[in-house]
């Protein structure tokens, strides 16, 4: 398989247009003579986003592009914290095929949004006159990060593509402000929307994910919940399960069919209710989870190794949770440096999100406090 070529650029200029243009110019320069075929953008919400995208497109032109707002990002060999700048990845060459599409209305009809962007992203990659496209595929997905059922978007994609197309990506973030996130599609800034990039491939693609958290104590059953609010666990007020009054954010692990845990971050509000970042249905079996930086760091090697299953991949697209960043504290870049060290021949490009996507088995694919990745 011919290797994919990539170029990355970042900028922290204060003017939105100038920052976008600078990051994209650096990315294109690194790509050299290769024709760009896909542009990915992660940015802080500090910018006027329309201006920023116009700055990028002033150099990348009509090349299909997608992206989202984030809470920090990493590109090439640098890590940028929340609230600072923009990162651009330009891809060209190689044997992959890309199709970009977006759909709006995530709050009202998330499953229809997923189905619609799946169909249209694939159609966008179709070459006229061609009967059969690439044999394998994956879907890169960026969704609105606040409000809207992200799992339903993935369910919609699954309905259209079926089990053979894995999904990877993340929910947009906003430098931890929790006010408003955006996704980008071909120069447009969208809210209440999701963007999908269909990736056609000559060989099977697989997504990797891991969190490193370990269960503490016995399993519990969520006995009463309404949407994101968890009222009771094991028949007791949910808040009683969490015993450290100073800690605001906890993780619950939903016990999976294979005995593993699907991470769900929860916050305790001052009025005693417990709110999950991603809704957990009533009667889910859960365990309280705990982690320290060492445990979180320990999963990085595995995620990288699983992603680089062929050994000749040139780009590693990673999605890391802002919650992990918090646990690492000031040393958070170490995790990314570790990733870069484990994949020395590969360009690492990723960002910090409000929810990480990795759908490989079954229908569910939304994770919290997790690291997910796909290598091309």
């Amino acid at each position, binding site marked *: 398989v011919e290797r994919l070529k990539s170029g990355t650029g970042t900028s922290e200029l204060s003017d939105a247009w100038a920052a976008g243009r600078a990051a994209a110019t650096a990315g294109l320069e690194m790509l050299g003579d290769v024709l760009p075929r896909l542009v990915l953008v992660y940015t802080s919400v500090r910018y006027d986003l329309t201006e920023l995208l116009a700055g990028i497109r002033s150099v990348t032109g009509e090349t299909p592009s997608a992206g989202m707002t984030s809470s920090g990002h990493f590109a090439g060999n640098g890590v940028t914290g929340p609230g600072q700048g923009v990162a651009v990845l330009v891809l060209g060459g190689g044997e992959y095929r890309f199709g970009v599409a977006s759909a709006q209305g995530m709050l009202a009809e998330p499953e229809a949004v997923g189905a619609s962007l799946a169909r249209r992203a694939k159609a966008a990659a179709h070459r006229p006159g061609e009967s059969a496209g690439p044999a394998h595929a994956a879907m890169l997905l960026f969704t609105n990060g606040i409000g809207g059922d992200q799992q339903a978007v993935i369910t919609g994609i699954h309905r259209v593509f079926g*089990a053979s197309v894995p999904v990877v990506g993340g929910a947009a973030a906003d430098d931890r402000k929790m006010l408003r996130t955006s996704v980008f599609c071909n120069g447009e800034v969208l809210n209440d929307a999701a963007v999908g990039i269909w990736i056609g491939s000559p060989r099977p693609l697989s997504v990797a994910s891991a969190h490193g958290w370990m269960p503490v104590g*016995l399993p519990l059953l969520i006995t009463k919940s309404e949407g994101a609010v968890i009222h009771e666990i094991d028949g007791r007020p949910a808040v009683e399960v969490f015993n450290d009054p100073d800690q605001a954010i906890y993780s619950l692990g939903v*016990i999976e*069919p294979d*005995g593993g845990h699907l991470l769900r971050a929860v916050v305790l509000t001052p009025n005693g209710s417990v709110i999950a970042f991603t809704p957990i249905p009533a*009667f889910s*079996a859960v365990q309280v989870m705990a982690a320290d930086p060492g445990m979180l760091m320990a999963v990085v090697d595995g995620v990288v190794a699983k992603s680089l299953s062929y050994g000749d991949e040139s780009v590693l697209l990673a999605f890391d949770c802002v919650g992990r960043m918090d646990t690492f504290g000031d040393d958070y870049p170490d995790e990314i440096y570790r990733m870069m060290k484990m994949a020395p021949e590969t360009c690492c490009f990723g960002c910090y999100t409000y929810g990480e996507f990795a759908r490989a*088995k079954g*229908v569910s694919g939304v994770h919290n406090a997790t690291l997910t990745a796909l290598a091309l």
Partner: protein
Amino acid sequence: VTAGAVGSQGPGGADGAAADEIRAVRAQLQLATQAAQQAYRDSSRLIRLLAVIGEPAAPDVLIDRTLGALSEVFYADLTCLVYSDGDSCKIITARGFGEREVPRLPVLPGAADLLNQNRLAAWLCPDGDPVPEAAGVPIRSAAHIPLVEATPAGEGLLLLRSDRTRFSPGELQMLQSVAARLRATLEEGERREAIERLARTGHQLTRHLEIEPLLGEALRLLRDMTGAEAASAVTVEHGLASLRVEVAARSDVPGVWPVPTRELLAWPSALRGESFVLDDMHTAPPNSLARVPTWVRNLACVPVLQDGTPIALLYVGHSRPGFFSRSTIEAAAVLAGYVGAALVNARLYSALVESESQLRLLTDELRRRATHDPLTGLANRDLARQLLDTSLASDDARLVGLLFCDLDKFKAINDRLGHEAGDDLLCQVAARLQSCVRPGDLLARLGGDEFLIVLPKVIDLEEVTKIGHRVLATLAEPFHLGEERVQVAASIGGVVGERGAGRHQAVDLLRDADAAMYAAKNRGRARVEVFDRFTAQKAVDYLSLREDMLTALDRDELEVHYQPIVDLLDERVIGFEALLRWNHHDLGSVSPAVFIPMAEETGAITEIGGWVLTEACRQLAEWHREFEAPLSIAVNVSPIQLLDPAFAEKCLRTIEEAGLRTGQVWLEVTESVEVTDQLTEQLCQLRDLGVRVAMDDFGMSYSNLGYLKHLPVERLKIDRTFVAGLVQAPDCSVRAGLIPSQDGRQRSAPRSGIGMDRGIVRAILAIAESAGMSVVAEGIETEEQRRVLLDLGCRQGQGYLFARPMTASAACCLLAEADRLLVEAAEHAVGR
């Protein structure tokens, strides 16, 4: 002390023994935790699946949801509903194949018949064998669970995994119970759906008076209801059966008709009045194959009976074995009952044509059937209307009365106890109502649970009311339905019609009585509500205005007006309150007191409220661009809007899209709003984002300080009635009764003295100050009121004294004028 720490002190001795013990306990604990994990996970899965199955849904949606949940909780990449008949296995519906792929099943090495047999089985790909593939997914593990066990053919769940993880006996057991529950729910759903469809369409059969078209229509309904691919109808006379009609039979076997009934396979069942089903023709005795097309695998027959004897047989066929469920055939048997009744009608008609002598008898019978309700024997709508028309046309000094009765919650009883019990109840109700009517009155059933009483000679509305109450009283005793005792009430609407010149039409009376009945229902059921001509007209007008309200926004009839909120000291405009106006295309301006409740009732307020906020924000942004004054906008929010969980998000989006800062927008909620968690949450969310909340009409209703504690209120608006009461009003009526207010709403003024109103205003200002809230006084009309308010310490207000609500352009002029005065004053100051 951790096991590791103890162990590090070295093996042997007492420490070593303790360490071993701790290690052993730890190991046991880990095993126990694992066991608990598994037990919790399994109950969680089962509850999850049963919850999905228990949620009401159409059968195809139910299956789809179940397949999705199975995929999730069992890590199955592909999940399907399949049909296995011993020779083959076909996918009926599936998840995980994607929409382009035609779902195809793989051949599982070493288990060729695992899928084809309708039995419980699990499979694991043998080591070293090539891994089969389906929909681009390698298949390494599978489980097949029949929905009904111990039948050679039938539907089943098929779960396929890409992981080489065997389905454990525990998992299979769980899947079996899920399959059984799914089957039961599907059957119940299918039965209900078929019966409902039948109830909607079955009666259409009776309009046919000739046998062939009647049977044709019956077969069409039957196919629609059962999903059959072919259907035919055979009639029976003098021991011979004749094929009368067939639909889509694609017959490929010669059939000779008529045949003696004893040759029909279904005949013995028909004689017993029972349906007959052959699940698979391939396993049926050879003599059953005569006259049945070879492609038909599943055959079913329901008899049409007259007085217990079969007079016709309805057949349905399908190419898939086991296609017709028991519940579908039960519904088909109900249809056969309708066909029986209609056939009798049709035969009567044929006989009528044949026999002159029976003409009158049969005509009467037909007329009776045409004018009476078949269930209760009461008059039907047509007959009631005829009587109304004749009564209104006759010359009599008295009036014509009409009562419209609708049983309350009849549907619930019908759903709970079944249709037969429902029919029984209607007959019992009819009998009791009959006891309420006088000679000359007419009781009719309009259909469903609606009854009508025509009173051709009444003195006045009071007489009608009296009979209405008599009806209520007669229904008060419980009804006996089998073992059950049920309580039924009715909502009753009554009207009277005038005869002679300018007389009522029957259609008007029916419409007005219906409106009165709805008024009774709205006021709490089990009531009698009577309308005179004026009230009836008002009710009808109200309904038509309500209809118009729904399209007012589309017709561009709504407009936002703005009333300035000013600094009471210098009359400087600090903001505006946005007020909605409706210019009706025929009626002109409609009062908000009339149309706002309508918009709330119909739910139109959600869209309209959103529109007002958008308009107001856009307008404010425009003023910000043109004028320097730091203005804010206040927008009223209806309690109905707050029920929308996305309200806060929508608000925020509107404000941002207009380019405003959230702090420039005030949302005004009224005190009458019930404080729910959801409401508090929405408002707190908005407040956290910077949007500001004001309490409108403060002091008027609940006057509950707890209110202020729960809601994130930053401003109180003193109701106009208190402002009006601050000084002696020139017109004393204002003090005593209804106050026509500036915004067109009317409200009752409390009977209080000046001192009391001042006291209240002072108290409100004190509350506001202690809670750090601002205060705006509403409805300031006189200079004296302004002065008193300033004396009491109130700094902001609105009212006619300063400005009436005005159009956006008028408000613009006002702002321009203020700007001009400001510049002049500045120049003047500089000049001096």
